[in-house]
């Protein structure tokens, strides 16, 4: 398997605080990698290390198959938008892009206009960035990250501040970049449902540690629908479920059972329970949400 990014025990320590703790993560070529974690989980620090903005305290980083000192020469293939877009407020959107193009030696005619059009800012090209809305700044930040046509794009919360239409536009841009240019994209976001729509692989980080790395299919199976059954006596209900060939269920408490299979078979389950003289108080299909799964994984109770 060819990995664009591969880390082994990557660690970053600031004073006594370990921001990223022994993270081993893998990003395949041409995929969108969703990076999930709460505020302060270590997402941004990890992304900074990938882009060369911060040096790892320990561990190994491999970019495009290169390790050690050779990684430095590969960071030029990485575009980033980390924390905030990093723009000169007194300059216009055009001038900000011009600065980056000059720094990278890009003098192609119409290149800046092309980038501005891609993120829908062609009409605001001459407007000063300090007069941009938060969403416009985010979009310009994405355009800045795309200067030079990077092979790997690292975006930290790029849809922050965008309205639903803006989010949809950014989603389309990212999908287009992946599908048409085979660009590898790592993206973190708090809007997990949005991330779920575009990412192929997910990494979940908590307190600096990568606690799970899973594909979209794996996540889908974990976030699938289930039946919530509330009855008078779960000890009487369980043999009925067993008798129906249902084995994937969980007894939550004395009167509640979660059933993870035969979700479309509500009527038959209800009839079987009634025949066994089990009083059904509630029988309902529940849609497991990504947020719930995430909170369960990272310890949602800590948020309370």
């Amino acid at each position: 398997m060819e990995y664009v990014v591969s880390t082994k025990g990557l660690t970053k320590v600031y004073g006594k605080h370990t921001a990223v703790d022994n993270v081993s993560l893998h990003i395949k070529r041409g995929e969108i990698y969703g990076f999930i974690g709460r505020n302060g989980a270590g997402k941004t620090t990890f992304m900074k290390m990938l882009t060369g903005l911060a040096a790892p305290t320990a561990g190994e980083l491999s970019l495009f198959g290169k390790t050690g000192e050779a990684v430095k020469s590969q960071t030029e293939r990485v575009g980033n938008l980390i924390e905030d877009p990093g723009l000169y407020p007194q300059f216009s959107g055009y001038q900000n892009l011009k600065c980056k193009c000059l720094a990278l030696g890009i003098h192609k005619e119409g290149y800046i206009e092309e980038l501005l059009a891609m993120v829908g800012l062609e009409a605001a090209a001459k407007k000063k960035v300090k007069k941009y809305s938060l969403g416009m700044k985010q979009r310009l930040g994405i355009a800045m990250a795309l200067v030079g046509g990077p092979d790997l794009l690292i975006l930290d919360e790029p849809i922050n501040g965008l309205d639903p239409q803006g989010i949809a536009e950014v989603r389309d841009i990212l999908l287009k970049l992946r599908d048409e240019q085979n660009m590898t994209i790592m993206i973190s976001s708090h809007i997990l449902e949005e991330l779920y729509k575009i990412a192929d692989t997910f990494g979940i980080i908590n307190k600096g540690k990568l606690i799970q790395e899973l594909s979209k299919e794996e996540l889908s199976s974990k976030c699938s629908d289930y039946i919530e059954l509330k009855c008078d006596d779960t000890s009487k209900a369980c043999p009925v479920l067993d008798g129906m060939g249902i084995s994937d269920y969980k007894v939550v408490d004395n009167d509640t059972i979660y059933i993870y299979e035969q979700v479309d078979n509500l009527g038959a389950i209800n009839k079987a329970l009634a025949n066994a003289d089990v009083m059904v108080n509630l029988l309902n299909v529940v849609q497991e949400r990504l947020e719930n799964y995430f909170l369960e994984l990272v310890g949602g109770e800590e948020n309370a």
Partner: protein
Amino acid sequence: MLNLIRMNNYRVRHMTCMYVLVIIICLFAVFSVSTISAAVEEMASGEYEEYDGMVDAMIAGYNDAAIEDGNEEGVINIGIDAEENGDAYKEGYELGQEVSMNFGIVSNQPIQPDGTVSSYLAYYYEDISSGLLLMFLTIAVVLFYNREQNSGFIKNISSKLTSRTSIFFSKFVTMGIYMLVIMLITAVSEYFALWIYYDGNLTFGINVLDDFVPKFCVQLLLHIAFLSGVIMVTTVTKSSTMGITIGILAITGFSDFIVLIIKVLLDFDMSKYLIRCNIASVNLNSGSEVVNHALLVGIITIIVYNVIGCTWFAKRDIA
């Protein structure tokens, strides 16, 4: 590297505050000419006793110099805090004597007692050797340098470059170009101000051109060396306030306290190796020994500050 210099020059050309600075410097040049001209007029008419404070110091400077030199041409000192004859500072240094402490910015203008300027180039040279330009440029350079950090723009370019030292060094080169441009703008402003004031009766001073050009180059180098130090301090401390404060304190002679303490404690005269002292010591009459010494100090200082700045910048986390 060349691309980064292009980017920096683009920024300079499109930053409003840089144009504001140019206007301030032009106005200051005109103000400087009109102030000293007014003082000279009064002095020529024998009414200088009426002045006090700064102008008294100027007159004292003129009298002392005239008495000491025993010639017709006097020296007028103007400055923010001209406590004593600034010429003693220079001459003392040139002769290898102990250098007196001299706080503030001092400009020694070669104006003759009849109120005429001995030559434009001499006038201009004395103005730049006062270090006054550094006051403005320190602020401009720190603002220019730190804006890239504060805005976060640095994140956009640093990951794209194999060597981060080029980011620091490109700013040094840009600053040198900007320094030269500002010096030339000052030259033009002062020329027109003097030309208007003296109704066109102004000697360009072509006879001092041979002395002027090499010494102007040395001054430029020393000014760049000073600003390298300011950038280095700003880089290390990551603070605009610190960069500006230390820069201005150094220009106005605060470092002389340190020189004095070292002199008393270690019996070592450090002033010879300070950029500010060298800027003041190289005048149009300076011999090659003084000029070469200043040149060496300037080059070494630039190398040291840039090595420290580049190393620090390359090692630390950008964000």
